[in-house]
């Protein structure tokens, strides 16, 4: 066996790799498996929130914002409790980001509100005079893609057993159910907003992107 390995450098290299990697694997894998299980009380995203997450990805907020609070006092003072792996269990993909031109957003739902996001997304300088964040006025008229969000939710439910439709959890149901639920959620958010165009759209059963995005922001806690 060893003689054979000595004559076959490729397999020898593979063997060396396995021996060296072994210690890492037994230490890292079980720990990782444990830590990445959903934290207690974690719920999957509603369809409206998923649509907001799509807006977040589409408008590339991740280029300037992270969603990962590190265990440093300076960060937990500003953003709240540090992030745990298990909190991302239903994030497919997770949006950790790697650049903070703007602040972290992992718990933005704890310290900002619907009306603030409305002002800020329309014109960041109106609330933060020195802000360099771009305005996102188009989100107030673009319609959010609820169909795709529903398809995404059904996919992760079927494929990864994401717990939709469980007791005390998030209901998904048929497309009609999901659409009605998303509209109801959107109406609640629009009621806290001031923009008349947005209110009119939602009253006509259409959901502008900004409403979905705010639903997603408010879910990040």
């Amino acid at each position: 066996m060893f003689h054979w390995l000595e004559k076959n450098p490729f397999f020898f290299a593979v063997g060396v790799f396995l021996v060296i990697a072994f210690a890492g694997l037994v230490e890292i894998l079980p720990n990782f498996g444990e830590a990445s299980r959903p934290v207690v009380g974690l719920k999957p995203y509603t369809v409206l929130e998923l649509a907001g997450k799509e807006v977040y990805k589409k408008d590339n907020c991740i280029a300037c914002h992270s969603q990962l609070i590190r265990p440093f006092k300076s960060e937990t003072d500003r953003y709240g409790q540090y992030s745990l792996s298990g909190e991302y269990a239903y994030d497919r993909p997770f949006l950790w980001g790697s650049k903070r031109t703007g602040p972290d957003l992992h718990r933005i739902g704890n310290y900002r509100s619907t009306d603030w996001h409305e002002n800020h997304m329309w014109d960041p300088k109106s609330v933060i005079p020195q802000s360099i964040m771009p305005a996102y006025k188009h989100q107030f008229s673009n319609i959010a893609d609820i169909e795709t969000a529903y398809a995404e939710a059904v996919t992760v439910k079927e494929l990864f057993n994401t717990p939709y439709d469980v007791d005390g959890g998030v209901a998904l149901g048929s497309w009609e159910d999901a659409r009605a639920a998303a509209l109801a959620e959107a109406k609640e958010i629009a009621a806290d907003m001031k923009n008349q165009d947005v209110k009119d759209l939602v009253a006509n059963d259409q959901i502008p992107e900004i409403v979905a995005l705010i639903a997603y922001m408010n879910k990040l806690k």
Partner: protein
Amino acid sequence: MNSLMIKALAFSAVLMGATIFVVKYMNVDLSDPVNLITMLGAAAIAFLTFGVAAKYINQMKTDKAEGELTDDNWDGIGEYKNELPGGWAYSFLGTIIWAMWYWTVGYPVNAYSQIGEYNKEVKAYNAQFQEMHKNADADTLQAMGESIFLVQCAPCHGETADGLSGKAQDLTARMAKDQILDVIAKGSNQLGFPMGAMPAGMASGADAEAIADYIVGGMQGQAPAAYATCAACHGADGQGMNGMSPNITKYDEKIVTQVLANGKKGMIGKMPSFNNRLTPVQEKALATYLQSL
């Protein structure tokens, strides 16, 4: 000493001379320890490189092979019986002993955890913070309040606390007239005062207007008769009867801590609760700061 050694030493001397030249004529500040250490390091490297190289070249030139051969012999090539070098053997033994210690005690007992370090750091900081600000005076609270306000509150209330033209409460004044009318009409039950809820519709029409004007005007002069309803809970002076209900004349410590603990959703918008995100000293500091506006 042979010629090679002399050449090597001469070369090191030239390099050291160059180093000293650079230090002298490029105005390197040697009182800065980093510069000093760098210069000494450069000198040591110059000396060691040539010293060691010369020693071994010399050895190769002059050494004669001698010693006891092992019994093995491969086509005329033999091997000397050499003792293990002592330093090597002892460090090998040392690492074996260290590995046993690390396996059984070192790793299991002292394993590093980032969260552990964080917890320790926060605990130490909090203890120090509490100790330092146990009896904070008004100036300290004022400065602390201002800096917390700029980080946590200014994004909504604005850097001057003016509420950014109606986007949040203008904290340089107590509630405006339309806000008071809104509370009178709708009631309120969210701030967690001992008295509980404020019922809706305690006054209406001209009475409500008169009350609101009176409160906004700083409760000067004769109170309108209808204010008697309000006085039952808020006190004749509007100060909230020692924290039983909100002080409607100014931001005292009680209203600030209640709003921070419960958040508030009113006519203007929603303020999220700051539950557990600020310490009692910090809340007191914020109240001090708000009162100074």
